[in-house]
């Protein structure tokens, strides 16, 4: 939160309560944080803390769930199995079939890590989706990109992989010089680019929407007719909040589904 905003909200600046009281509109400044502490020139900020927390939670929950697996699951093992099976049946199997089960650990960690990173947006005190900082989606996308490129080159051979990628089946030879560059560009550059942008942009816009309406509820709050506007704004805030609950899940789902799709593309040449 920018200093100006803290000042205006702390001083009880409301609509028409003072001539200089403007609506403190949220902006890109709300995505930059003062470092919690610095190590050398490295600044440890809130999003980094949230990242470590997410990783730790995923690790601990699944470790607890499968530390002593029982045939008939009890307690937290139920939760763990539900999570793993959901990813397997909804994301992995439709894309890869049962032969893709070896990628299940990767996809499960990816899905729950991204979901948690998104979910911080809705959790009080944290109130910030770490994935809206572009570096996190880019890092995750790099991992995915290296994975599917490696799998592709390993399964189809380094040359065969690019040949299968560049030559669409059934296309006449004379059009290939025009089509192959598109195919290569979209597989190698556009895919990872859109994968990271989609996640970042969705979480960033969601966070901005929540900020706009929550700040407006506070700003419009007064003993006059403005109370009505504040109430409307608060209702919209609640609606957006519910929408964001869905979006945090959906974005993690899309990211993981596309990862599975790219892996399946790399395992076998496109038909």
């Amino acid at each position, binding site marked *: 939160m920018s200093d100006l905003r803290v000042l205006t909200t702390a001083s009880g600046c409301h609509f028409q309560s003072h001539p200089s009281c403007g609506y403190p509109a949220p902006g890109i400044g709300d995505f930059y944080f003062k470092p919690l502490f610095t190590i050398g020139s490295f600044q440890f900020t809130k999003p980094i803390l949230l990242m470590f927390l997410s990783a730790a939670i995923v690790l601990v929950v699944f470790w607890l769930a499968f530390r002593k697996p029982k045939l008939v699951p009890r307690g937290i093992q139920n939760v763990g199995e539900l999570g793993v099976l959901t990813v397997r049946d909804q994301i992995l199997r439709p*894309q890869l079939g049962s032969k893709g089960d070896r990628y299940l650990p990767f996809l499960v960690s990816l899905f729950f890590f991204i979901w948690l990173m998104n979910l911080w947006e809705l959790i009080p005190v944290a109130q910030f989706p770490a994935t809206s900082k572009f570096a996190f989606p880019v890092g995750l996308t790099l991992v995915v990109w290296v994975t599917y490129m490696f799998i592709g080159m390993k399964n189809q051979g380094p040359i065969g992989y690019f040949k299968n990628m560049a030559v*669409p089946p059934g*296309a006449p030879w004379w059009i290939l010089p025009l089509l192959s560059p598109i*195919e290569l*560009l*979209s597989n190698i550059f556009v895919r990872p680019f*859109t994968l990271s942008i989609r996640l970042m942009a969705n979480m960033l816009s969601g966070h901005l929407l929540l900020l706009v309406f929550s700040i407006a509820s506070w700003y419009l709050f007064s003993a006059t007719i403005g109370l009505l506007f504040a109430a409307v704004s608060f209702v919209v805030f609640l609606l957006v909040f519910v929408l964001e609950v869905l979006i945090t899940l959906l974005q993690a789902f899309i990211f993981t589904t*596309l990862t599975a*799709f790219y892996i399946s*593309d790399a395992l076998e040449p496109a038909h």
Partner: protein
Amino acid sequence: MPREGTGWSIVSYLVGGMLLYGGIGWLIGRWTHIEALTGVGIVLGIGLSLALIIYRFTRPSD
């Protein structure tokens, strides 16, 4: 039934085609001082992307 990633692949082909041929058109346009070539490139790129999508996704083997 098409797999779930198909829709996103089609989007990335369209973006790729527009970027590539729009970019080539823009470069040639800069060189020859004909600005309209960027637009021509983008339209050509969409056309070629569509051809590619048809070859990729509408064959019976899929």
